């Protein structure tokens, strides 16, 4: 909206004022003070939004008017309107909007709606704060805080980013408050620290208890030692008392036992005397006397008869040698036979000696220089024989094995030499190539040939495919045109459609539009369908042809590629295989060559394997040789051990062994015969020497024999002598029978006498006495002893019964012997009183110890220290978490601050961004930026040295420039939203210096050139002149017509 003319019929000081603006967007209206400039501003605002209905101080308005009336001629989007308002002095007024056109004026039915459209829905307050500003508004910040203005300036409707930043800050602040408020000492951290302090105190307390525990424990230990000592003393005293009482009790029975024992000691030890012993002893005495007399009489008679029979005696030599003589006489026949046997044995001995000499001679032929002694040293056991046999067999087996192996080895060597020669020939044929290389080359050739064959087949296939594709392409090209009939049908369809369209148009014009429209659209549809079918077919066929062409091209490329590959695979060495009619024959030849080379390779491998085997066999042959040597050494050692001469020929050794055996056997037989002969000779010599000795012994009575061959002559004499000796022996035998009877009688009497004496001695010995009197006295004493023992047993039983009452106390004889009943009584009294004292002390100590134990047990079972420590650990974990969070908050807040700061400078509301530009222009670059902290309602400035100022900190002029810039930006902002209202300034530049004023005017003029209408009221003539200098027409307000009937003039 642009104001074209102000028509004031009656308003404030003005009556019938007409201010026509001629189209320049910047209009300067000059009028001195009290000319009514501000009233004009109020008038404009009043017409647009309603006259002021309050704050009028006079009874009929400020200027005493009854009615306020006037109009604004405005242009809005190319249409001119007259907006008039008329009302009583205290009313907002009635609005009329007339639309002006060349045809005249037309009053609008809905003036409010039109006006809202014209003013862009702005309200009066916004108009006053943003579009029509006076010095007051420019000087004060408050007017910028109004809701709608504020929204634009302070970005109260922040974008998502701004909201995020603000919310992050707010929440961080809240969390920080929850965690830690140092000023009021509140928050989670404080609580946790307090809890930590409490727990540490608890732990210190519990630890102190631990120290006290140790003291108490020591105390208890001391107390227990004391109790132990008291108990020991008490026990001792009780023991002593019991001892004393026991002594008193036991003394009398003990004394009695003691007396009995003393008497018993004086009596002989108890022994068993036979019953009626004394009587028996008396009878034995009389029997002994009688027996002694009978024995002595009979012994005298026997001695006399012996003296009579000893008168006649034979020759003593004959009597002594009688038995030997009889024996030698009996061996007389044997003696004669033995002599003959000895002669025969000597004959055999000679024969055996001859045999031995023969054997020895034979042996010496095999083993020169061997002696019989040497043969005897040889071990001729069956074990040696077995050993020799086994060793010989083993030796022969090893020799045979070695021989067999040598034959095999020689065969292999011969075979290998043949194959090596063959292989050398093959290598010569290969012209220096190794068989493996040749084989690899042959295989490669074979593979190449195969690949070539394969590629040739592929080329063939591709050629066929290409031919097919070409044929197909030719066919499709033929098909590309639809059949003529189809073309005809489509053409008819399209033409029919076009006709229908024409008919439809004609019908619509001539008759009725509806059927015409139907025909028109029907025709259009038919033509369209026909055209679509044709296009579709053409497209489909073209597509197929294109695909076939692509395929053909691809096949050709592939074919070229395959051909190149075939060329690449050509190998000049294939001529080695000879001329071949076709590739198959070439493949066969290549196969044959590969097989041949494989055979050579196999031969090479076999030769190599044989060489390896030969190497192994050489080692094995050496092993076998080593083993043979070893066994030969064993054989020789065995021979040496047995005692045979060393020889590697086993047959010779065994022949020698047999001869040795025969020789040794002959030697053994000879020695056996010699031994047997010796034995016989010895027996014969012994017989002869005995005969000679007996004969020498008897020589006193006859002749001695000089020659052993005459031994037969003594034997008849010996037979006579032995006959005489036999007669004497029969006489003596008769006498002896008579004497023997007498002697038997004497011996019987002697035995009887001895028996009686020994019976008596036995009886006395048993009693331990020597006489009959002593025996009688002993019997008396033993009777007394028995009585005493019975009494002692009774007394001892009493004593034992008393002793059993105190089994722990031992009876000490010495104490009882020295026992004094009176002294004992006194000691008993002392002990009893001391024990009472000790018992009292013990009870007290026990009580004290019990209490201590209970206390200690309570402490030991008290797990509070463990619990406190665990609680402390938990609190510390919580503290760590809370501290982490707190420091995390600090970090987060700092980063958030940085982000906010950057955001505030770079992401400001558009109004402030525009205002910054104006402000920079108006301050000639001294200030660079205007911004407002996020979420705050105050402005900050940044100068060209990046110093920050709050708006309150800058000078008044700068502040007015800033607010002017902001209004300009606001107006521009609204204009961009198609809210186009004039910008009306009422003496806002009065506080500017010359430079700033000029700059401001220049800026405003520049802005006005963009189409923004600016109405500038001023009372300063220099301003008007300044503008006039710049070609701007200035209105000089006439003096107002109103008389100050009300007396008050507030305009200007």
């Amino acid at each position, binding site marked *: 909206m642009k104001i074209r003319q102000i028509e004031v019929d009656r308003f404030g000081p003005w009556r019938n004022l007409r201010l026509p603006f001629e189209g320049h967007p910047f209009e300067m209206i000059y009028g001195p003070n009290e000319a009514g400039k501000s009233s004009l501003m109020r008038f404009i605002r009043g017409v647009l939004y309603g006259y002021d209905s309050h704050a009028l101080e006079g009874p009929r308005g400020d200027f005493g008017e009854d009615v306020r009336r006037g109009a604004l001629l405005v242009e809005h989007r190319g249409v001119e309107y007259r907006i008039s308002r008329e009302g009583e002095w205290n009313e907002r007024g009635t609005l009329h909007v007339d639309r002006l056109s060349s045809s005249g004026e037309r009053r609008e039915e809905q003036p409010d709606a039109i006006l809202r459209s014209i003013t862009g829905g702005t309200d009066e307050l916004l108009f006053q704060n943003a579009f029509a500003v006076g010095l007051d508004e420019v000087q004060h910040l408050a007017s910028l805080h109004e809701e709608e203005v504020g929204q634009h300036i302070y970005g109260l409707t922040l974008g*998502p*980013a701004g*909201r*995020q*930043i603000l*919310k*992050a800050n707010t*929440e*961080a602040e809240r*969390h920080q408050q929850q965690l830690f408020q*140092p000023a009021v000492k509140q928050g989670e*951290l404080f609580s946790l*620290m307090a809890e930590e302090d409490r727990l540490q105190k608890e732990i210190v307390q*519990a*630890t102190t*208890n*631990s120290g006290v*525990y*140790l003291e108490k424990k020591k105390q208890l*230990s001391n107390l227990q030692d004391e109790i132990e000592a008291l108990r020991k003393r008490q026990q001792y005293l009780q023991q002593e008392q019991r001892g004393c009482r026991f002594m008193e009790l036991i003394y009398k029975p003990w004394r009695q036992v003691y007396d009995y024992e003393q008497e018993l000691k004086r009596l002989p030890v108890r022994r068993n005397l036979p019953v009626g012993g004394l009587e028996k002893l008396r009878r034995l005495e009389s029997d002994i006397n009688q027996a002694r007399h009978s024995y002595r009489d009979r012994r005298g008679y026997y001695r006399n008869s012996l003296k009579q029979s000893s008168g006649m005696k034979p020759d003593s030599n004959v009597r002594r040698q009688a038995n030997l003589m009889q024996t030698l006489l009996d061996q007389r026949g044997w003696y004669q036979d033995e002599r003959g046997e000895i002669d025969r044995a000597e004959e055999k001995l000679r024969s055996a000696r001859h045999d031995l000499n023969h054997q020895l001679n034979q042996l010496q032929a095999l083993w020169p220089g061997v002696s019989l002694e040497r043969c005897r040293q040889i071990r001729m056991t069956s074990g040696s024989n077995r050993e020799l046999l086994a060793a010989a067999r083993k030796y022969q087996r090893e020799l045979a094995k070695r021989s067999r192996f040598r034959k095999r080895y020689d065969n292999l060597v011969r075979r290998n030499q043949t194959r090596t020669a063959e292989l050398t020939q093959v290598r010569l044929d290969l012209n220096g190539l190794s068989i493996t290389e040749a084989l690899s080359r042959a295989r490669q050739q074979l593979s190449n040939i195969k690949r070539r064959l394969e590629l040739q087949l592929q080329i063939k296939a591709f050629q066929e495919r290409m031919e097919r594709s070409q044929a197909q392409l030719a066919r499709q090209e033929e098909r590309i045109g639809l059949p003529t009939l189809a073309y005809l049908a489509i053409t008819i369809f399209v033409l029919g459609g076009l006709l229908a369209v024409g008919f439809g148009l004609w019908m619509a014009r001539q008759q009725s539009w509806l059927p015409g429209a139907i025909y028109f659209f029907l025709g259009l549809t038919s033509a369209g369908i026909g055209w679509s079918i044709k296009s579709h077919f053409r497209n489909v066929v073209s597509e197929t042809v294109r695909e076939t062409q692509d395929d053909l091209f691809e096949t050709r490329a592939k074919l070229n590629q395959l051909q190149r590959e075939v060329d690449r695979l050509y190998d000049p060495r294939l001529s080695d295989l000879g001329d071949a009619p076709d590739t198959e024959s070439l493949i066969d030849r290549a196969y044959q060559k590969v097989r041949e080379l494989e055979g050579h390779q196999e031969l090479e491998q076999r030769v190599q394997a044989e060489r390896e085997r030969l190497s192994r066999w050489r080692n094995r042959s050496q092993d076998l040789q080593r083993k043979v040597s070893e066994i030969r050494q064993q054989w020789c050692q065995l021979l040496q051990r047995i005692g045979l001469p060393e020889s590697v020929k086993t047959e010779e050794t065994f022949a020698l062994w047999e001869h040795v055996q025969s020789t040794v056997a002959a030697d053994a037989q000879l020695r056996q015969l010699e031994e047997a002969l010796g034995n016989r000779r010895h027996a014969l010599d012994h017989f002869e020497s005995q005969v000679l000795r007996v004969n020498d012994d008897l020589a006193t009575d006859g002749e001695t024999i000089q020659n052993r061959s005459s031994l037969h002559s003594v034997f008849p004499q010996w037979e006579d002598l032995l006959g005489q000796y036999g007669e004497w022996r029969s006489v003596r035998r008769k006498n002896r029978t008579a004497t023997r009877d007498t002697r038997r009688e004497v011996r019987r009497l002697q035995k009887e006498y001895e028996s009686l004496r020994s019976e008596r001695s036995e009886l006395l010995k048993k009693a331990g006495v020597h006489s009959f009197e002593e025996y009688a006295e002993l019997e008396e004493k033993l009777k007394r002893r028995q009585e005493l023992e019975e009494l002692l047993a009774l007394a001892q039983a009493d004593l034992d019964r008393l002793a059993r009452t105190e089994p722990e106390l031992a009876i000490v004889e010495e104490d009882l012997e020295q026992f004094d009943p009176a002294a004992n009584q006194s000691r008993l009294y002392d002990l009893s009183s001391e024990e009472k004292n000790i018992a009292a002390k013990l009870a007290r100590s026990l009580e004290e110890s019990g209490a201590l134990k209970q206390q200690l047990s309570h*402490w*030991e*079972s*008290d*797990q509070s*220290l*463990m*619990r406190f*420590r*665990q*609680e*402390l*650990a*938990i609190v*510390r*974990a*919580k*503290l*760590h*978490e809370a*501290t*982490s*969070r*707190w*420091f*995390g*908050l*600090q*970090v*987060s807040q700092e*980063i*958030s601050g*940085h*982000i906010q700061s*950057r955001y505030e400078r770079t992401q400001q509301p558009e109004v402030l961004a525009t205002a910054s530009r104006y402000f920079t222009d108006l301050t000639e670059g001294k200030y660079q930026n205007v911004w407002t902290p996020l979420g705050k309602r105050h402005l900050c400035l940044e100068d060209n040295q990046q110093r920050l100022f709050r708006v309150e900190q800058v000078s008044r002029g700068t502040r007015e420039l800033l607010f002017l810039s902001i209004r300009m930006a606001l107006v521009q902002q609204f204009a961009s939203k198609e809210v186009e209202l004039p910008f009306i300034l009422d003496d806002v530049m009065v506080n500017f210096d010359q430079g700033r004023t000029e700059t401001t005017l220049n800026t405003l003029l520049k802005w006005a050139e963009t189409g923004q209408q600016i109405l500038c009221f001023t009372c300063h003539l220099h301003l008007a002149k300044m503008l006039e200098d710049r070609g701007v027409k200035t209105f000089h307000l006439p003096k107002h017509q109103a008389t100050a009937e009300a007396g008050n003039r507030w305009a200007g």
Partner: protein
Amino acid sequence: MPQSPLRFLHADQLNLDVPLEGISAISSSSLQELSTAPLNLLDNLLEYAMEESVPFVLLTGTLFGADPPSLAAQSALRQFAAELYELGVELVLAPHPLERQLLSRQYWDELEAILLEPNLSASIELESSSSHAHAHLHVEIQLRKEGSNGYAASDPSRENEFRIVVLEADEPFSGLQSLLQAHTAGSEISEAACGHALEQVIESTHRTIDADYVALTGYGYRAQKKRDSHQHSRFYHAAGCLMPRTFEEAQVEKVGQATLVRVEPGQGIHLTSRRVAPLRLVPVSIQVHPADSKRDLERRLQEEIDALEPAAVEKLFIIEWNINGAGDLLFELADTELRRDLEKKLKGSRPLIHQWKLWPDRNALEHAYSQEPLASQFLEQLQQYAETNPGNLVSDFLSRLEIDSQWQHRLRQLGTELSTESILAAACQQGGAYFVSTEEGVER
């Protein structure tokens, strides 16, 4: 090597008084269960010893792990030793050297156990159950400190003698000392380098120690991964920490297990490990993709739970869900209520405690939201912090805040215990919810 069979139990790092670390979400009933878990562990170990009828139990490494040890733990160990003694099972202890000094001589004397002293031999005479002629078996146990003198090889083992050396790591063990010196402060030492250093330690001890079984203690979980080596007929074994204390430790295979060592004549040494810890810490990593829904996540979590094979003694599983990757789901999980709902839906064969850790993958996010200017800016600036030392980061922020010096000090202390990655994960979680997410910020 003895000619008679021998069996014994070896367990390391009892840690009776060390609390479970890194758990923040827990109910009061679970708290009681956690704090008394070490006591239940001793019951389980006792049952294991009874079941296997071993002649002795070897406990190496830290027994209590706190100064001072709690009276309850001391009492429990005393009770454990007494019950073993009643059963005729010898208890051999090779505690941490500090613990040997920390507790009074009276305590150790009262314990029905054999306390190993450095470089002094202890011996156990055993009646062999074998039908072989060697009815007596002499087990000699010695405690040696790594790098200490007195490694002189003693007489070779006799037929009926089994020699055990408990090799205690130096602090830090000398093999790693040179490695640490070679690295500048703050630079990461690779696991391979640690492993190599440990190899060298073992190689050096090979030449000097003559033993049938070397029980390594104090070498930490790193030693565990490759340290069951059977070389030169000597057996080097580091049993896992018996009571797992952190999720990091829990990643080691043998943690929470006691080892049954079986020596078979002619067949060498066989190790069988069995879980005895009453609870198990299970660190699980889950990768979240932008297209994943809540149902997908629930299914994958349930699959992980189903894959757990509980031992009879285990009464509780504590699962640390390390959720990483990119996508709105990751930011939504910051909502406690959502996590509670998810936890209610997850079922396991044992009661479960869930510990959540969210690790947004910045690279993946940058890639996914490269077209979003705000997200790009946020992640780009976040990346700049990744190269900052955590100490400097904490100091920088604290110096800008006007808070009381006492709180500054505590926050600084806490901050130095954090990793840059955890701070950045929290930052990404906080800011990412608004800048990165496609939604206008996830409601929290």
